[in-house]
Every structure is written in structure tokens, then in C-alpha cells.
């Protein structure tokens, strides 16, 4: 194709439509469709549904910084845990509503993220070094929490059970209440909407540009450091909400549940499987991974005869996570949603 003469351009050729409104509409529709879900599912599956949403929120948060922002985080447990511990501490020690606790947790996580991010970016950590630094900070929080009297050391916190079972103000309901699902759904919608608005915004576009080519971005006037820090703050805040909710739902938190490396992995996996740097990837990945634990648990409880030696054992679900992870990275590096989206575009 030669560009030897200036091609004539059709005056006023229409600009392509940006997909934001489509995404927002899809989020709305999905939310509405899912509202009746907890009323239809039996209790056990209802718990799985909540777990799927927790995975989704964590991964949506991770995706903002690591997918759209290109800063691969291996320590997102730090933000999850800060969200969890902040709301737990405020509730148990000061009887403050978990809603407020969640909001404060978001701020705490965002501040922590900005500080760590600033140090890492200022010292020009990239790639593996950056990932290891994020891991190190999460581990340090875990170790510190395990031995600190401020937060009850390794025992963690039990959320005190309310005498009259149900309270919106204290985010506590009877076991299996659909309210938990609806709150988690609300947080998921919140995360998705933030993702869309982020991508649509100046700072979001600047961050994606900086991810694609940092030097070129700087040379067109993008304040790269500032954008990266905002991205990290958003990412941390969203993931923190998952932490606060987790504490309220399971009524317990301890350093391993909050800051353990498996938490960081749970933030990464859904996005990788569904599609990193896509809006829907983390959700799809969560839908795939969430029920997996349950399916394998059922399988191991009552295995078919040829697998009877597996009876009563644990660990199969994570083995499948690992295998799935390897397969996806090797075969479908753009994730399930990413691959589908490419197929669709090529039609």
C-alpha cells in the first residue's frame, strides 16, 4: 500500500463509537439480571456465588493497576488485607460501622499503595523487581500483623455476632442471607463502573499510553508518575473493599487470610484467565474459578469409584487452578474474554 500521494479524505467521515456506554449498559443489565440469583440458589451455591463476586472484586482491582496500568503486582494481598484489617479493627475496637470501616479501609489501602508505588517508581523498579517489591511489602504486612499487639497478633479478629442477627448498619445478617450477595454485587458493579470510567478518563488513557510506551508518553506531555500513582490508588481502593466485605461475610480475619500470598494469587488468577487489561476478564475468570473449589470439594467428598483413592483429600482445586493458569498462559495468553474479543473483531 503506497502512501506516495496524499489520499483524499471524505469530509466529515464519522468517528468510530467508543464502547463505554455499551459497557455501562451491560453492567447495568447484568446487575439487574443477577439480583434475583440468591433467592433462586440453594444455600451452598449461594455461598459460591458470593465467593465468585469476592474474587471478581479483588481481580477487578488488580486489573486496574496491573492490566490497564501495566504494573504487575504480586502483592495485592496488601490492599485486601489493609481493607480487611481496617474495618475489622474499627469495628471490634471502636464499634464503628463496617461501611465506614470500608471507606476508611479504601483510603488506607490507597495511601499505602501510593507510598509503595512512589518509592518503587522513584527508584525505577520495573518488571520482576517491581513485582518482587510488591510481594515483599505484602509479606511484611503479614509478618508484622502476626506479631503486632495492635491488631491482635496471629489470632486475628472475630466479628462480634449481633444479638438480633440483622443490621444493615453493621453489615451483618443471618447466615446465607441474600443481602450479602447484593452487597457484593453492588461492590462488583462499583468496581466495574470505576474501571470503565477510568479507561474513559484522561488519567486512564494516559496510564494506558504510559503502559504501552512510557518514554513516548512522557514526550507528549503525560505526567507519567502522577498517572501511575492515581492508577495504583484506585486499584488498591477497589481491592480493599473486597477485604472489608470478606471480614464481614466470614466474620473472621487473621494475618494469613488477609495478607497471605494465596490472596495475591486469587487477585491475579481471574484476570489472567478471563483476560488481563479487559473490563470483563476478571469477572469471567472469577466465574470460572469460584465454583471450581466447590466442584472439586464435592468430587473429593464422594469420588467416582475409579478415583476412590482421592477420598477425603484436599488440594485438587488449587492443582486445577495451577493447570488452568499454565494452559491459559501458554495457549490463550489474552485470556478467555480477550481471545473471544479478538475473534469477534476479526469477523
Amino acid at each position, binding site marked *: 500500500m503506497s502512501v506516495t500521494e496524499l489520499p483524499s479524505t471524505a469530509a466529515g467521515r464519522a468517528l468510530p463509537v467508543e464502547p463505554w456506554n455499551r459497557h455501562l449498559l451491560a453492567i447495568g443489565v447484568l446487575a439487574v439480571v443477577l439480583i434475583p440469583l440468591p433467592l433462586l440458589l440453594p444455600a451452598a451455591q449461594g455461598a459460591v456465588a458470593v465467593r465468585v463476586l469476592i474474587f471478581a472484586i479483588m481481580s477487578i482491582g488488580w486489573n486496574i493497576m496491573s492490566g490497564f496500568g501495566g504494573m504487575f503486582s504480586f502483592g495485592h494481598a496488601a490492599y485486601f488485607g489493609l481493607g480487611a484489617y481496617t474495618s475489622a479493627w474499627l469495628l471490634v475496637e471502636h464499634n464503628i460501622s463496617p461501611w465506614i470501616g470500608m471507606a476508611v479501609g479504601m483510603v488506607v489501602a490507597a495511601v499505602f499503595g501510593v507510598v509503595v508505588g512512589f518509592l518503587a517508581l522513584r*527508584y525505577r*523498579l*520495573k518488571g*520482576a523487581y517491581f513485582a518482587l517489591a510488591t510481594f515483599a511489602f505484602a509479606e511484611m504486612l503479614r*509478618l*508484622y500483623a502476626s506479631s503486632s499487639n495492635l491488631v491482635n497478633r496471629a489470632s486475628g479478629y472475630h466479628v462480634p455476632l449481633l444479638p438480633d442477627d440483622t443490621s444493615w448498619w453493621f453489615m451483618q445478617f443471618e447466615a446465607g442471607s441474600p443481602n450479602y450477595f447484593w452487597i457484593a454485587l453492588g461492590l462488583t458493579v462499583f468496581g466495574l463502573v470505576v474501571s470503565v470510567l477510568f479507561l474513559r478518563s484522561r488519567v486512564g488513557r494516559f496510564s494506558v499510553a504510559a503502559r504501552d510506551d512510557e518514554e513516548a508518553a512522557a514526550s507528549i506531555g503525560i505526567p507519567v508518575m502522577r498517572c501511575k500513582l492515581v492508577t495504583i490508588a484506585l486499584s488498591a481502593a477497589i481491592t480493599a473493599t473486597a477485604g472489608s466485605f470478606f471480614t464481614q461475610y466470614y466474620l473472621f480475619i487473621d494475618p494469613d487470610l488477609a495478607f497471605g500470598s494465596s490472596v495475591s494469587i486469587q487477585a491475579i488468577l481471574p484476570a489472567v484467565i478471563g483476560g488481563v487489561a479487559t473490563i470483563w476478564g476478571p469477572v469471567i475468570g472469577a466465574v470460572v474459578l469460584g465454583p471450581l473449589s466447590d466442584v472439586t470439594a464435592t468430587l473429593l467428598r464422594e469420588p467416582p469409584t475409579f478415583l476412590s483413592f482421592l477420598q477425603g483429600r484436599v488440594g485438587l482445586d488449587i492443582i486445577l487452578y*495451577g493447570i488452568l*493458569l499454565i494452559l491459559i*498462559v501458554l495457549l490463550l495468553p489474552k485470556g478467555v474474554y480477550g481471545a473471544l474479543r479478538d475473534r469477534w473483531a476479526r469477523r
Partner: protein
Amino acid sequence: MSHPSETRQTSPSDPAQAGAPRTRRPVPWLPVLTTVALVVAAVALAFVRSGSGAVVTQAVLAGVLIGGIYGLLAMGLTLIFGVLDIVNFAHGAFLTVALFLTFWLVQSLGLHPYLALGVTVPAMFLIGFGVQRGVLSGAMGKPLQNQLLITLGIALVIENALLMFVGANPRSVALPGDQGVQVLGAVAELSNLFAFVGSLLLAGGLFLLLQRTRLGTAIRAVAANDVGAQMVGIDVRRIYALTFALGTACAGAAGTLVAPLVTIEPTTGSLFNILAFVIVVLGSMGNVVGALVGGLIIGLTEQLGTLLLPSQSPQLSVFIVFVLVLFLRPQGLFGRSA
């Protein structure tokens, strides 16, 4: 991925000259002396804090002894990184496999734990070779994230396969005839001493292999410049697989040597894993000698850390050092600034 330039104390990148007498890169005195000074300061502080020379000596001894094993493990990891550019998150999991293999050999065959080396090292070598050829070769040259995630996946599979098929019951291996021995005013178990000596011997062996054999030369050539190495006829893919196998064999050796010293559970390797990463960064990624030195330093850090920060986990001091290294000198002790 961008990272501070790796350095090995070997010849410049022309693989054709790899066999010729080589000029060694000068020892970076400033960072080395600073580190020595810091270590001495830490020991002094620990002495002040604990008020007892015996306690400090004990800590130093323990730190150095375990540091040898850390160093051996980290050597394998840094070798893998230096040649394949892979951050191998499954390194600790391979150590765990070796632990369990050692346990099984001792338990069911009555083998002396150190004789198990004769089985675990070749076994892990083969496993590493297979893993690289089978799974990782598909990810060579892809972005860092991909390799990280694949090795993470491998780690998850190994750890949980062990959990599922062997169970979570803690197991242990005992060294027959183990006893405390007086060393320079402190006491060490024979198992500790043997592990340390064994690690140094194997580390020395690895070093000799890298410097004096054809394979080692080829490995160093690929590490320096894989395209150039290919152009002088080195089968780079085979070197990748062999290097990964060698690195995994180090993990296997470290696993067998450390078996009498730890409880054997599916998760035992993951702690060693993260320590290995810290050491590799500290010793400069790709630098085999640096890994050994780094291992000793981290071993000391752990032990002195229990004295300097008594109420905290020993790993916390390691992480503090890690973070400081990442920020202040990410190229490690022996690397140059990017």
C-alpha cells in the same frame, strides 16, 4: 524486561573467547566493604541488645551454617535467571519435592539421608529438564508476566499435588548419629555442619562446572549473549533445558541437605523460595558467586534479626533488607548500575 545489567565474574560476551584465559571483572570493593561493615555493625548491635556474647556467637554460627544451604538453593535460581531470564517461582516447590523424596528414601529404603543425594540430585535434574522442555519452552521470549505466571502455576500444582497425594502430616528425617558439636564457642548440630559443608562442596562443584567444562562454557556463553552463542553453533535450546535442570538439581541437593533440619510439609519449600529470591537480588541476578555470598548474608540477617527485633518474625528482618536492597542498590552487590 528491563533489569540492571547482570554480571558474572567471567569473560566478556564473546563466546569464542570463553575458553581462553580471561580477565576477571574487578571485585567491587565499595559495596562489599560496606556490606561487611554493616554485618559487623549488626553483630555489634545484637551483642548490645542481647547482652551476651555467647548468644550472638550462636546466632552468627547458626546464620552462617544455614546460609550455606540458602546459598546453594539461590545459586540454582540465579543460574536459571541468568541464562533463561526466567523468574522461577517454582524453585521452592522443587526443593519440597526433594524433601519428600528424601523422606521416602530414608523411610522405606532405610537410606542414609546424605546418600539420598545420589538419587534426588539426578531425579531433580531430570524433572527440571522435563519441565523446561515440556512447559516452559513455550514461554521463552514472551513477556515476563507469562513466565512468572507459568512457574507460579507449576508451583501451585507441585505443592498441592504433594498435599493431595502425600498429605499434610508433618514428617521429619533424622540424621543417624546427630549430636551437638562445639564450634568456636557455640554449639551446632552435626546435621547443620554437614549441610553447610555439603552445600559449599556442591556450590564449588557447580562453580567448577561452569568455569572449567565445555558445558559450563556454553552455559556462560548463552547467559552473556544467546544470539551470539547460537551463531557459534551452540544448541541454545538444549542449554536452556540443561541449565534449568542444573538449577533444579541445586534445589534438589539443597532439599536433601536441609531435610534433617526442617519439618517436611508441602509448604516448607515456599519459605525457602522467597528467601532464595531475596538472595538472588542481593547477590545480583545471574551471579553465581553472589548467590552464595548473599545466602550467607541472609542467613546471618535472619539469625541476627531475632536478636535485634526479638518480638518479630525473623523473616521480617530479611524483608527489610530486601526492600532496602531493591530501592538502594537493585543491581545487587556485584552488579553495575543500569
